[in-house]
Every structure is written in structure tokens, then in C-alpha cells.
């Protein structure tokens, strides 16, 4: 009898307990739903994920750590046309994700209809870049971002006016508060958030990346192309090569170098020399990343080459001599005593096959890099 009573009591207590548990559980679900609708932006440090072979020589300024909320805001701003003088252009206008963040044009039109002097550069793995622009004049993303925003022939609006315009919107003051602690919008904060978003544009899943981690078996053409890409020509030893890897080598195909690559004997655009006034910097430009290179035509600082075939032809047969021509491009040949590389037509095709291995479709389709506005539009359908 005694035990029966005890059991009964135990059952009652358990029932009560489970009741409270259930109520608590439902309450928690409701609460999480509530907080989700009122504050959809995740906060906290942003975890930048990349392969170990990319190395850790990355650049993040101490006064602009990467946070989830900062990246969210930066992405909104990257696609924000209010940042241009006539509300028509955003960073995205010249840096479109489906073209590996280029615009497919030789030169791009600014708010005033004037063309930019140089080709829009692709954005990928900027975390590892220290010098920006074709002439490397900007030290860091934050410094770089100011130019396209304010240049009268690009987005053409002072940072102060941009800050003012955003202050008048319903959403931005709250977002800035989430990122910087108060609703004050400044040019500096705009630029910092955009830079945070740009640091997340990591491309690490091309077929070349997959090959490097043993997850892809290249075709014969791709393998031969890779060999030509990496080898310097040594005709005496019977080794054929294009030596591309000398300046475009490594797992990132980016080494932060600046060279005159023999496009002109008398360059129209003097490149780095325009501010160093050094003869050796004449026509000297950044050696850009080759990541997603098949998607970023036209090529070179002035977009003069429409196809990769034209680019490879240039390096093989049309390098022009000048005092500033890179020594690595001078007198390199697959023929003994030859003056130019003299690649065979089949070899050019193989190199292009390898270059196509550098296309990262995961990167260009990553929803986290896409226009946040068009995404919500898509989910509404």
C-alpha cells in the first residue's frame, strides 16, 4: 500500500515536471521565432574558412575585424545604388558575381558616362592582397574602396553625402548600430563594412583546387597545360614551357607582383611610373590573379584582348621590347636562340584548358555573395 502511494506521488510529480518542461519548450520556440523576426542578422566574429595551402599571410586591419554583422552590412552596401551620385550604380555594376566580379567590358561607364581609364578587376581572395588597383597604389581594401565610390567618373558621390543618404533610410541606421554600436553613419564606416564583405569573397573550389586536394583527376590536356604553365622553357634540355607560373604560380595563382608584360613599346598608360616617375616602372601593372580567368574577359589593364587565346598568343609571339620589359619575359623561348616563346597551337590549347580549370563555379554561385535584395525577391516567387 505504502509503495503504491509512493508510486502514485512519483507519477504526479513526473507529470508536473514534464508539464513545465513542455511549457518551457514551447515558450523557447516562440521566443526564438520572435527574436528571429525582429533581428534576422547573425552577430559575432566571422569565421574566414580557406584551404591550408593558401597560407595565412592575410591582411585584416586591427581597427576593422571581420564580423558577421559587418559582412552582412557590407554586402548590402556592395549592392547599394544609393552610394552613387545618380542612384544607378553600385560596386556590383562593375563587379558582377556571375562574371567573377567583373563586368565583361574593356572599360566601364561611370555616373557621368565617362569611361574608366582601366579594366574592372576581378574580386577573389582579396584577403591575401596587400596592394590594390592595377598600379598597386592603394595599401589595403579600405583605402581602395574610397576611389570607386567618390571618383566623378565612377560612382561619383562624396562619402559624406553617401552617409547622409543612408541615414535617411529606414534600415541602415539600425544596421550600423548593430555593427558599430551606434546609429552614426560615416564614410569610414561605409568603407570598412564593404571591405569586410570583400574579405569573405574566397574562391577555393575550382577544379584546380579540387585537383590539389586529390578530389579531381585532370584531363590529359589540362595536365599538359598545367605542366606548360609551370615549366620555364629549356630547349637545350628538351623541356617545353610557357613559364606562366613564374608570376602567376602557387595555389592561389596570385603572387602580388607588378610587371611590364610587353604589351607596348611606348605605353599609352604609364602604369606605376605615373607616380614613381621611374623608367623601370613604365607600363608596369599588377600581375592579376588567374582565378576564374575564363570568366573575366576582356583581358589586360585596358581590356585589349577579348579572349584567352589572344592573351596566350601575346605571351607566345607578340611581346614587345622596351627598357621596362620584365626580364622574365625577355629572351624566353622554346627554340634554341629563339626570341619569343613559340608555343605550338596544341600547346596554346592545353594552356587554355588548364586556365579553364581555375573557374570556380561554387564561388560564382555562392548565395552568400549574391545581391541580398534579389535573393529575397527570388524566395518570394
Amino acid at each position, binding site marked *: 500500500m505504502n509503495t503504491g502511494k509512493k508510486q502514485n506521488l512519483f507519477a504526479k510529480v513526473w507529470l508536473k515536471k514534464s508539464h513545465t518542461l513542455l511549457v518551457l519548450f514551447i515558450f523557447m520556440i516562440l521566443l526564438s521565432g520572435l527574436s528571429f523576426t525582429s533581428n534576422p542578422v547573425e552577430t559575432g566574429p566571422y569565421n574566414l574558412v580557406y584551404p591550408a595551402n593558401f597560407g595565412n599571410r592575410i591582411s585584416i586591419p586591427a581597427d576593422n575585424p571581420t564580423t558577421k554583422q559587418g559582412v552582412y552590412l557590407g554586402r548590402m552596401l556592395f549592392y547599394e545604388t544609393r552610394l552613387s551620385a545618380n542612384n544607378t550604380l553600385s560596386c556590383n555594376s562593375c563587379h558582377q558575381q556571375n562574371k567573377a566580379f567583373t563586368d565583361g567590358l574593356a572599360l566601364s561607364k561611370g555616373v557621368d558616362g565617362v569611361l574608366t581609364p582601366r579594366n574592372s578587376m576581378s574580386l577573389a581572395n582579396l584577403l591575401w592582397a596587400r596592394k590594390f588597383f592595377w598600379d598597386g597604389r592603394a595599401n589595403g581594401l579600405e583605402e581602395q574602396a574610397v576611389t570607386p565610390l567618390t571618383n566623378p567618373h565612377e560612382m561619383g558621390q562624396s562619402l559624406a553625402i553617401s552617409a547622409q543618404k543612408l541615414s535617411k533610410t529606414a534600415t541602415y541606421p539600425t544596421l550600423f548600430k548593430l555593427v558599430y554600436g551606434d546609429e552614426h553613419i560615416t564614410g569610414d564606416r561605409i568603407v570598412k563594412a564593404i571591405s569586410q564583405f570583400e574579405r569573405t569573397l574566397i574562391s577555393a573550389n575550382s577544379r584546380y583546387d579540387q585537383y590539389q586536394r586529390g578530389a579531381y583527376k585532370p584531363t590529359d590536356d589540362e595536365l599538359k597545360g598545367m605542366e606548360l604553365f609551370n615549366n620555364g622553357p629549356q630547349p637545350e634540355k628538351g623541356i617545353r614551357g610557357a613559364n606562366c607560373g613564374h608570376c602567376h604560380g602557387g595555389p592561389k595563382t596570385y603572387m602580388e607582383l*607588378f610587371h611590364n608584360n610587353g604589351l607596348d613599346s*611606348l605605353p599609352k598608360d604609364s602604369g606605376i611610373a605615373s607616380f614613381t616617375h621611374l623608367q623601370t616602372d613604365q607600363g608596369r601593372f599588377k600581375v592579376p590573379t588567374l582565378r576564374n580567368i575564363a570568366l573575366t574577359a576582356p583581358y589586360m589593364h585596358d581590356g585589349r584582348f577579348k579572349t584567352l587565346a589572344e592573351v596566350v598568343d601575346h605571351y607566345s609571339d607578340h611581346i614587345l621590347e622596351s627598357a621596362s620589359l620584365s626580364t622574365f619575359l625577355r629572351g624566353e623561348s622554346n627554340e634554341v636562340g629563339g626570341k619569343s616563346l613559340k608555343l605550338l597551337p596544341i600547346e596554346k590549347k592545353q594552356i587554355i584548358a588548364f586556365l579553364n580549370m581555375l573557374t570556380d563555379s561554387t564561388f560564382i554561385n555562392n548565395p552568400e555573395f549574391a545581391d541580398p535584395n534579389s535573393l529575397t525577391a527570388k524566395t518570394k516567387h
Partner: protein
Amino acid sequence: MKKHLIIACLALLSFTAIPFITQAQTIKVSGEVTTPLTIDAAYLQKLAPTTVTRKDRDGKDHTYTGVILAEILKNAGVTLGPELKGENLTKYLQVEASDGYQVIFALAELDKSFTDRTIILADKVDGQPLAPGDGPYRIIVQDEKKPARCIKQVTAMQVHFVK
């Protein structure tokens, strides 16, 4: 004849197109130094010349003339000689070229009390100024098998502690 004329025209054009090229390359020495330096031809002339013979990419021996790198660093107040001990052994020299290429040397690699190998900042090869693509200043590392650290077109040298 026609060819000569074209070359003459091109030469003339090249002078008219780039009148603003007036600067001479210098080397900035900075970082963990007591006296930051800006090195130019006149500065190098004041220091004792040293020669190093080594093979270049052409496979032939060349005689390079320049100044022992450690002498320049001593003038900048870098901790070499008796001071190169303890935590100073975690310092390195980072050399940068105008094309962005960078190499490093541990300070101990440059110090006479650690090694007899001579590393110089050269401005001449076989008695002639270095070619524009190599110079005006190039590091020459005696006996190093690969020429990768014989960095050309040097523009900056910085001494840093390893972090």
C-alpha cells in the same frame, strides 16, 4: 635605311612621350633601425667596395661589385656584431624589389661573426652598371645555389622581429 629611320623616329618619340621620368631609384632602410636610411649611388660610393663572383642564369661566372650588406645595416644601427644575441637573433631583413618580389635573410646570415659567406648590395656587374631590368641595385649572395635570393631592382630593406 627605312628601318633606321623608323628606329630614329621611335627613339625621338620615346623621349617626347616620357619627359617626366626624372627620378633615380633609391633604397629605403627602415624597421628595427636606430637611423632610417635612404640609399642612393652617392651613399654607396662612401663605403668600401667588395666583389663577389657567382654564376648568373646564363650559367657563366660574373663579378659583382657593391657594398657588404651588413655595413649598410650597421650604419642604420641594426643589432649586428656583439649585439646579435638573445632576442635579436629572431630578427630578419626583408628585401623588396620594385616588382613586389620579397625575400628575407635572418640577421645571423648577414653577420661576419656567424658566417664567412659574403652578401652584398651590388651596383655593378663585370665593371658595368647593372642592366635596368636587374638594377640599379641587386643583392648578390655568395655561393648560394639558387639565384632566387639574388633579388633584383631592390627598393626597400626592412628589419623586423619575428612575431
